[in-house]
């Protein structure tokens, strides 16, 4: 009897809430729509294109021979197939770590030095701009990461394990926030990254321009800041855990249309 009353009250409450929530959600949707036209990511895309074509480094070469998996110099379509295995480095690589390899091999730049550089400084800014340019060339294409090589399958499997790995002061894993459908943190929708979360959502939306700090973020920085908020220690740039997680999310996103570079809160 008492239980029924409580449920009744809860149901009433929920109705009221659903209404209030809807208007907030609508307001936010309207806000996001207004920002779509004129995404400052365009500025970074233009920088990236110029960097791609510019002769730089000790070898005074451009990146126009860089092989992102579609053959030397092919940019279009590369983004939606990364991370993948590269025979020349013997590793599965994501877009950003692959760009570093190209800068090493073609331009003679110091990859270890670039990996050590903090986000938002020097060559790291260049990597972000380049990643924005490469991603933009695959806008509207669907994700289709190769899983033919044993290392690609292994990357997926250990990436999945990293996704569910709980630790730190708060017991968080990636799955704490991104393991089921339809949840949010504050007002931000949390994509379910254990499957294809839909076109232009989650893995298919980064690199993105972050409105909150006016910065362009690639997937490496996106993951880095997830780990920060997970209260984990610091993941190395291009470290195996970041690439494996990208493989896990990228393979799960199969068929999702890329909208990167996007604009985010």
């Amino acid at each position, binding site marked *: 009897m008492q239980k029924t009353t409580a449920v009744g009250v809860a149901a009433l409450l929920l109705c009221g809430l659903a209404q209030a929530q809807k208007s907030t959600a609508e307001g936010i949707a309207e806000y996001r729509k207004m920002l779509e*036209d*004129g*995404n*400052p990511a*365009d*500025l970074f895309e*233009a*920088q990236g294109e110029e960097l791609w074509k510019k002769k730089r480094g000790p070898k005074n070469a451009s990146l126009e021979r860089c092989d992102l998996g579609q053959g030397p110099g092919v940019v279009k379509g590369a983004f939606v197939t990364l991370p993948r295995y590269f025979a020349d480095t013997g590793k599965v690589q994501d877009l950003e770590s692959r760009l570093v390899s190209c800068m090493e091999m073609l331009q003679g730049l110091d990859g270890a030095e670039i990996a050590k550089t903090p986000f938002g400084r020097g060559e790291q800014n260049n990597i972000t701009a380049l990643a924005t340019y490469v991603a933009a060339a695959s806008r509207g294409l669907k994700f289709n990461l190769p899983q033919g090589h044993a290392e690609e399958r292994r990357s997926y499997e250990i990436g999945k394990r990293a996704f569910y790995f709980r630790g730190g002061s708060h017991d968080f894993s990636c799955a704490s926030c991104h393991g089921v459908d339809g949840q949010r943190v504050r007002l931000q929708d949390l994509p379910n990254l254990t499957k294809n979360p839909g076109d232009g959502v989650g893995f298919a939306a980064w690199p993105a*321009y972050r409105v909150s700090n*006016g910065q362009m973020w690639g997937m490496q920085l996106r993951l880095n800041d997830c780990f920060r908020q997970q209260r984990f220690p610091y993941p190395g740039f291009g470290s195996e855990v970041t690439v494996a997680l990208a493989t896990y999310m990228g393979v799960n996103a199969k068929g999702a249309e890329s909208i990167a570079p996007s604009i985010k809160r």
Partner: protein
Amino acid sequence: MADPMRIRAQAAGDKTTVRVLMSHEMETGQRKDSAGKTIPAWFIREVSATHNGKPVLQAQWGPSIAKNPFLQFVVKGAKAGDKIAVTWIDNKDDKRTDEAVVS
């Protein structure tokens, strides 16, 4: 040297909608860095636009315009092939002019 703007100018009928993205910090002068030191103000103060060389719009901005500013305006009578140029000048007297062709 400041980074280039992105200018899109699209004609529809006798009106051309111009959308401009500028690369700029737009620092308010009210924020502090991690050491507690005030970050000095650094923002675009003046913006002007021309249509085939003729001035059409002149603006003054304060630091509360958002970082990497966006500006949209509508030019009357511009047609495909016309030139729209935009210039900004910041409070350090750095400036930048870029031009786009109306499509």
